[in-house]
């Protein structure tokens, strides 16, 4: 595997200047259609999505990163459309095959670095939605190879400042 990197995936453009080993991707500026559930990436062209849009540039970066920051609006306690679309399109980095993780069945990862994740959920989020979102990230952690994670809820107004603060922590 090539060298480690850090990755920020955001559903909105942000004015932040991360260091050289960090890639910032504004998903809303990319052309990414939704997964159609064909399982081609597991059973036809393993490790590659058959839809050749911008998502195929993003999931290899997720695999190579040992630190990720996902920045997203939420809806009904889950990720809103832009981030969720990308996460669904990232299944080529897993295999079809299933293993046990903490006593639960989950897919085997391909060449995916274990990662420390910071999840920043922004917008108006009710307490109930926050609880659902926390449960979701706990589940994601098993499926997305997170070794540890931190969830931060913030408002849209405070978003840039919050992200800057978290990026600074990475640089220490």
């Amino acid at each position: 595997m090539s060298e480690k990197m850090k990755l920020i995936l955001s559903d909105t453009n942000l004015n932040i200047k991360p260091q050289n080993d960090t890639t910032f991707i504004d998903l809303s500026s990319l052309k990414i259609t939704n997964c159609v559930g064909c399982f081609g990436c597991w059973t036809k062209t393993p490790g590659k999505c058959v839809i050749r849009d911008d998502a195929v540039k993003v999931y290899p970066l997720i695999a190579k990163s040992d630190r990720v920051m996902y920045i997203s609006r939420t809806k009904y306690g889950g990720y809103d459309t832009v981030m969720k679309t990308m996460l669904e399109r990232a299944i080529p980095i897993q295999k079809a095959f299933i293993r046990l993780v903490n006593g639960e069945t989950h897919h085997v990862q391909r060449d995916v670095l274990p990662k420390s994740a910071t999840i920043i959920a922004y917008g108006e989020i009710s307490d109930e939605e926050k609880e659902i979102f926390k449960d979701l990230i706990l589940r994601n952690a098993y499926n997305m190879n997170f070794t540890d994670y931190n969830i931060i809820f913030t408002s849209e107004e405070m978003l840039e400042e919050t992200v800057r603060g978290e990026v600074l922590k990475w640089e220490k």
Partner: protein
Amino acid sequence: MGKVMILNGSPRAPKSNSKIYSDIFRKYCKLDTEYFNISKTNHIELCKKIGEFSDVLVVFPLYADSLPVTLLNFLKNLELNPPEKKPVISLLVNCGFIEYQQNDIAVKMMEQFCKKNEYKMGSVLKIGSGEAILTTFFNVLVKMKIRRLAYSVANKKYKTFTLTMPLSKRSFIKASTKYWDNYGKNNGVTHEEMDTMNIES
């Protein structure tokens, strides 16, 4: 008499497991049913129709631990285009893994939608091992459960049901490996090829 609108929220709706689950429901439901795939272009049409039904059954797969975007996007549009008369919303959700509990977050998200938009939640059926179960002899269990689900909706005795393959996790993993090996074989791809560690290379 009520009428049930079945909405398939799978992104591969015409060829989905959700379609098969829906067909079984239709067979057992004594109320009239009408079936629709949620597509990218028919949201408004569905929003207009939904008020004609006493009940809606949303049938969908778990995607990345939550609602597939196909369904999420429809719900967002339904929020903007609500019917005058709101039906009761029941769910039939299936996931690939053996633990039907992995569907819980998707169910909670649907509860949030209902709460926010003032729909009453009806019955729920959570299926684990839902990708493969229809191809096994546990298929009979699926029919039995969906029959009970259909009964509960038709009689307004709303309940939550669960189902998965009655296998140990080890046996499930073995069976699923065989399932995926066969899937690959049908595409001319070997186990070793599917097992590659490479991503986009």
